[in-house]
Each structure stands twice: as C-alpha cells, then as structure tokens.
C-alpha cells in the first residue's frame, strides 16, 4: 500500500507536469480534430448538416459518398497517436526523473543521460511484448475468445509495467542501457513484485477503461456531445499513467533506500 500511496504522492507533487502532459495530448488531439473537420467540411460543402435523429446514417452516408473522408480520419488519428506516442517515449526520462524528485539542472542532466538507454530498451520491449503476446495467444487458442481477450489484455498491461520498470532502472539506477537483459530483468522484476505489478496493471486497466469511455462518449453523443467531457477524461487517463509510473519509481527508490 505504501508503494501505491508513494506513487500517488509523487504524482501529486508534480501537478504542473500532469497538467502539462494533458495539455500536450489535448493539443495534438485538437489539431487532429480540426484537420478532420476541415476535410469533412470540404467534402460535404454546403450540405454540412447532421440530422441528430439519424446521425449514424448521416455520417455513413457522407463516408461512402466521399471515400477520402474515412481513410483521412483514420490516418490523421493514427498520425496523432504516433506523434503522442513518440512524445511520450522521448519525454519519459524527463517524467521519470521528475517523479524521482530531481529538479533544475540535475533533472535535465538525468533525463538526457537516460534518453538513449530508454529508447533502446523501449525497442527491446517491443520485441519482448510481441513475444509475450504471441505466447499468450498460442497457448490460449483452444479457449473461448473472451478468455483470450482478457488474457491478452492482461499480458499487454504486464508488459507495460515491465517497460516502466526497465525505464526507471535505466534512468535512476544506471542499469545497462543497451543490453536486452535489462529489458528482461524489468519483466522478471515486476513479475516478482506483485505490490508493483498489481496496481500497475489495475491503473493500466483504468487507462484503457477511460479510453473506452472517451470513445463511447464520442459515439453516443455523435453530433451533440461536448468534447470537454472527453478532454477531462483524458486528464484522468494521463494522471493514471503517471501514477503507474510513480509507483514503479517509488518502488525502485524504496529498494535503493533499503
């Protein structure tokens, strides 16, 4: 419990970072939304009207008439997601250093020093996570689809907490930057520490649930709902992610102290 609360304290100790991360995500999403809106407005011209009682048909009608709108939306969203993903990756050493309590010049130095290792270890984790998903997928193939989905999601989240542990080890504990063993140790470490793994996975689940809620709100309120509900949920989602990282940082520093 102390690790969980310690992680939360680290998050609440950096409210500006939380807010800043959220604003960054919101800005990227805002640009994506504006781009798609312009694309759709150009496609429908002066007929830019949505009958709210038949919103789904109205949207699909336009998507099939102008075949560029649908792919345009998907590509733009994926591009936004990619930009956000790269930003999270590059900035993660800075976030970890800040959650670890570094300030000022020391913060920058710690982050810059950790960045190359974090990039390399993140690449190793892509392989590790892929391998884990394949193993889970193959071993659960005879079981019902629902079991596969649940297990796959859990495996994905476990791999995420392992990545956190590896990144924290590289930035804060000067773990070997380049070797795949560092990535593997991150996975082994979290599997052996349920006090980190369980809250990490639960917070990851919370993030996924929040993302699902955001999408549901967007579809349920098609044409009418305010985007602010989705934006505020993203603030929660970003907070959950930072808390998850904070727990791993707390655990690492507590271990060092011991």
């Amino acid at each position, binding site marked *: 419990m102390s690790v969980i609360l310690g992680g939360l304290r680290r998050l609440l100790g950096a409210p500006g970072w939380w807010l800043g991360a959220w604003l960054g*995500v919101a800005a990227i999403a805002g640009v994506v939304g504006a781009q798609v809106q312009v694309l759709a407005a150009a496609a429908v011209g002066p007929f830019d009207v949505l009958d709210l009682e038949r919103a789904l048909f109205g949207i699909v009608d336009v998507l099939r008439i102008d075949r560029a709108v649908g792919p345009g939306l998907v590509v733009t969203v994926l591009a936004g997601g990619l930009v956000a993903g790269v930003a999270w990756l590059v900035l993660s050493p800075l976030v970890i250093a800040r959650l670890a309590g570094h300030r000022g010049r020391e913060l920058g130095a710690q982050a810059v020093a950790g960045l190359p290792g974090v990039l390399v270890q993140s690449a190793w984790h892509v392989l590790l996570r892929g391998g884990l998903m394949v193993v889970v997928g193959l071993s659960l193939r005879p079981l019902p689809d629902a079991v596969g*989905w649940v297990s796959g999601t859990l495996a994905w989240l476990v791999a995420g907490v392992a990545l956190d542990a590896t990144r924290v080890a590289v930035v804060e504990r000067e773990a070997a930057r380049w070797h795949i063993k560092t990535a593997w140790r991150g996975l082994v470490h979290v599997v052996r520490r349920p006090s980190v793994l369980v809250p990490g996975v639960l917070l990851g689940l919370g993030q996924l649930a929040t993302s699902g809620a955001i999408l549901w709100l967007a579809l349920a309120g098609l044409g009418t709902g305010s985007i602010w509900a989705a934006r505020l949920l993203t603030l929660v989602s970003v907070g959950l992610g930072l808390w998850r990282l904070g727990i791993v940082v707390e655990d690492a520093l507590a271990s060092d102290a011991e």
Partner: protein
Amino acid sequence: MHQAEEGVPGPIAAISIAAIPIAASPIAASIAVTPGAATTRRRSSGGLALAAACLLAGCDAPPLAHTTPVAEPTEALRPEAVRGAIPEHAHVVDYAITARYDETLHQIDGRARITWRNRGPRAVDSIPFHLYMNGFRAADTAWMEQARGQHRGETLDLEDPWGYADVATVERLGGPGASDGEPGRTALRHAEASDPTLMTVWLDEAVPPGEAVELEIAFTTKLPRVFARTGFADRYVMAGQWFPKPGVLEPDGSWSAHVFTLFSEFYADFGDYDVELDLPADLVVGASGILVSHAQEGSRQRLRYRAQMVHDFAWTAGPDLVEAWDDYEGIRIRALVPRDRADQAEPHLAAQRAALASMEARFGPYPWSTITLVDPPEGAEGAGGMEYPTLYTTSPVTAVPKPLRMLGFDVRLGGEFTTVHEFGHQYFQGLLASNEYAQPWLDEGLNTFSNMLVFVDRWGDDGGDGPWLAKLAGQPLGLYDGLRLDQGDSSELEVIDQTAWDFTPLAGGYGSVTYRKTAALMLTLRRIVGAEPFDAAMRRYADRHRFGHPRGRDLEATLAEVLGERVVLGHTADGRAIELHLAEYFEQALRTTRVMDFRVHKVTSQPRLGDEGWHRDEHGTLQGGDPLPEEPPEGWPDEALEGLVVVHRRGEFVVPVEIEVELSDHTRERVLWDGRGRFVVLRFPGKTVRWASIDPEGRLVLEGKRYDNTRYAEGKQPEATVSGALGRVAEASTLALAGGLGP
C-alpha cells in the same frame, strides 16, 4: 458454452416465449437433443477462464431444456378452414420417390414415379425436365461459366467439386401390364440439352389437354461437397434439387424450362410428394412435408415423408444436429441446429414465430402444417440461406455479448434475419410460385420487402426511419436507412425486371438490384401512397395468386386495381392535382436504371418584387414614379425580401417529392412538387428561408444518397454538422489513443 449437460435440469425448464413482443399463441418452445448423442460439450477451461468469458460474453443465454417434441402433424396441409381452398388446376404433378443415400460415395440412387397432368391448351408430346444438379457437373456448364468457382463467398472444393444427376431410364407406365400386376412399361427416349441442366423426354403418345401421363425415372445423383446450397460436408448432407423435375407448361401452351445459371434458382409446378428415404440410421433427418413412417433396419433407417401442394422436396441429415420444437397456431416448427450452436435454436425459433405472425397477417394463412429450419454445421456454410417448401436453411446468429448490448451496441441482422428471409420464401416463391429464372425480383425482392415488414411488425415504429437494424453506442441505424446504404453503387448498373441469365456477374448488381432495390421500390411506394391501401393491395395480390405462378404484370395490375392508376398525392396552389402515375413509377423503377436523387441547389433570398416606378392606369396614363427604396443600413427586413429555394432533380427518376422549409419566423411549410421538371423554384414572399429539406419523412427509400437533401441558408447555422461530428470523433479517438498510451 451455455449448454446444460443432458439430464441436468437447468434453471429454466422450458424456454418461455412470453417476452417475445409479437402476437403469438401461448405456446411452449422446447429444445431437445437426439437420442444417442445427447450430451452437449462443455469446455473445461477452468473456473477463472469461464468466469472471465462469462463476464465478456454475458452469460444470459438460457440453458437448454429437454421436453417432449411437438407431435408430427398427421396432415401435410392445414385444415381447409384455416388455409383456404386450393384450386384444382394448381395441382399439376405428383411424385413418388424412393431413394437410397450412400454416404461413402455421396450418391443418391433413386426412382421417381411422376404423374404429370396436361393443364395446357394443346396436346403434349415431349416434356422438358430440369436436372439442376448437373450445373455442378463440369467447368463448362452455364452455371459454372458464370460462377467461376465462386458462390456467395464460398469456393468450389478442389477434391469433390462435381455433382450431377444422371438419368438411366425413363419409362411410361400404363397400358397392358405384366403378369405380376405391375403396370405396363414403355421405354421412352430422353436426352440432355446442350447444357446438361435440361433434359427432354419424348413421349410415345401425346398427352391430350386434361389428361395425365405417368413416368418412372431411374436416376443417380452425385452430390458435390457443399458449395452452392447443396451437397455434403463430412457426414452432413443437404440434398436440394436432387431429382429430375418437369418444367412448367404455361397457360399459352409454351414450356418454361430454363438452363440453370448462377442467379436463376428454380421454377416448378405444385403437386404432392411421397418420398421414401433410405439413410444411415444415426443421422438426424429433416425434410419437406411430414414424416409418415420411420423404421430402423440395422445400420439403416427408412423414412417416409408426405408433402402436399408444394413444388419441390428437399431433405437434410447429419449426425450432430440438435432438435428444437415449437408450435404456432397448429403449425409444427422444428429446428435443426449444430450441437455446438444449440443455444441458437431459441433466437431462430423466435424469429420464425415473428415471421409467421407477420406474414400470416399480411399475406394470408400459411397453408402447410409444418416448417423445418436448419442451421448447417461448420463446413457446410454454403448450404445456408436457402429455401425449399416447408424446409429452409439459415445461418448462425450474431450474438452480441450482454455488456456490449448494455453499452448500446447491438445488431438485428445475422442468422435471425436469415431465418426471417428464408421463411419469407415460403410465401414469395413457395406459395406465390413465380418464375425465379424469368423474374427473380418477384421472389427475392418481394420477399426482402416482406422481411422489412416483419421487422416493422416485430419491433414496431412503422413511421420515421423504422425499427433499428444496428446500434452503435446507442446511435441507431434504422431499417429504411439501412436499406438505402445497402443498395450500393452497383444497383445503378442493371435493371430489376430482367431474367436471371441477363444479370452480369461482373457488374455485381444482382443482389443489390434484385433484393434491396426491389424492396426499396416497394417500400417507397408504400410510404408514398400510404401503408393501409398499399398493404390491402399486397394482400389482394397474395390472396389471388396463392398456389399460382404470378408474373410481374400481375403484381402491377393488382396494385393499380387497388390503388388506382394515378394516385393523387396533393394539389398545387392553383388546384392542379399532383399525382403518382403507377405505370410510370413501375416502368422507371423496374425497367430502367434511372436513379432517384434530389438536391437542395440553393437557399437564398432576394428583394421582394415591389410596385415602384411608372405604371399605366385604366386610361392609359402613366402614374406613380416612386423611386426604388434604399436598402436600410441594417439590411432589408424580412418583409421586404422573398425567400427562395431551388430544388434540383439530379437523377432521371421522376417522382413527386415533398419539400419542407423553415422560414425566418420559425414557421415551417411543406410543398409538394411533382418532380417533373429538372428543378423547381419555391418562393416565399415577405419571409426568408432558414433551411430547406427534401423528403423530410424519408418516404423515398429508393433515394440512396441523401446527404444533400438538406441545406441551410448562408449565415444560418444548423444545430449539428457532419464535419463537426467527425472532427469530434477524430479528436476523441486521438485523446483515447494518446491518453491510453502514455506515459
């Protein structure tokens, strides 16, 4: 995964249908498993896994219960007081068939004794026969030429692709008999046509009008691996079009016998069937008609079926079929579903009951005492979705997990729709036996139309956009809009009223034209002229042509008879009637590729026409000379303006259409336009127009593209926009993605 073990009572002993929102009789549905193979499999994946699966899948499906099957009816037809009289002239051909199925060779050896009556005006000296199974005999048959190894997403099997019907002998029975009491036999000449799906039998004596001839045909039918409707898949077998059938002698004395092609389906006369099947003993069997006797003979079983006043006979058998029964107003419903989908019997039965309730109310009583629905097992998907008299095949139910349904995601298509559709064929071609080769729209299109009405009757909401077909986060997609989307661009390439042969597979329009566009044209007409008179007209058509072979012109004539040749829909301001010309409507919809498409071309305003300037008075003297008023700094008031709406008929299809406008004082007006010109200008003196909308009630189901049917005047903002909605969806998706990814 939801099935109970045999003998273990589930919490629900019999599946109640009380919650089904249709007018159904107080009946009990029951599901049972065939003797000897009664246990349903339960996955042994562990408690946690099952709990997780339950959580996701929503373990709300009722467990199965075993109850007594609904008794086999004793008569193949319902009592005459219920089903009505059957005209004598409809009874043309009777069959007595004995057949033995060899499941090693996948072969049926049979003898068919056929009694054919000449209902035509002239003597007949030869009879054409359909050998539909020969469509699968070789790569160069007409069917294969069009299909090229593909049919409804299924691919021809490379190991067992071929099927055929080989006629060994044809004999005429009658005349001096042998000493054993058997009738005399005369061998008749027979020969296949250039396409082997047709065969001619030359009679030794012409059959005069009103007389009958009795033939006996010895045949062997080899089944292909299930590909297009018929065949085997491991031990499962679906035997459709498996015996020789005479063509149809039309009232003018001409024969309707067609080469079997990719889209042609079938056409035959009504009559009685007495069929004895010799099959492996462990197979669960379903067939057209009623089972009149059943005997086990070692490893074989002998089943005898009787069907009356039907135009085909099909049977199916499999080792892993689970049976479920139901009863609707004395009609025995029997479902055969694969063991691993046993829990889907109930949704199929519910759909079947809904279809019966709707179709009986709209198109008259179902005349037969039984109906069997079959969901072919895995590997036999190609047999799914096909109709035969009193038996049809359906497809698996699309089960949406309960949690998703709670979140507003749901669908009413999939297997339940297939059940409604294939049962609908019991009327639209089973009872109203149109020529599926000559006018495929008469069965597929009218049936699809009737399926839409089953949805309306089952789920309500006949106005507006109809009941929903699918929901996405609570956003409904309505029935009529679904039909609009489903017509597709290829529906503009080919006309509806053409023979099956004339449809070009490469154009890809057969499905969208024959099924959806026909349904859309019927629904459009219904919504234009009003449901009540239209439904009355359709009822008259159905009553008039039961057990007959109606043609398209019969439908058009009946609709014109009830609705009138010209339906007055409204009047212009000067009192001129705005009419729908029924013949013109059908001509455009059925026999041209004209597209129905309107657009609001312009919504604007201009200064109102004033009386300033010089005018002559009654003495011819120029009077007045008032100057034109200057535009006030704040712009012209509404009273000084004239609102204008220009509506463009973009498509070639001419049809009256309603236009709704909202004026500057927030009042709304509706104007009916006859749609004859290329465009119309609507004027609203003293007011400006905020927006205009074409066909606000959505009556024109044939109009597929509607995004340009509503337009706002410049400077007026709609409550919601497509671009805004899509922009928000994109932004929210990015927020979900980026928020879920980080840090």
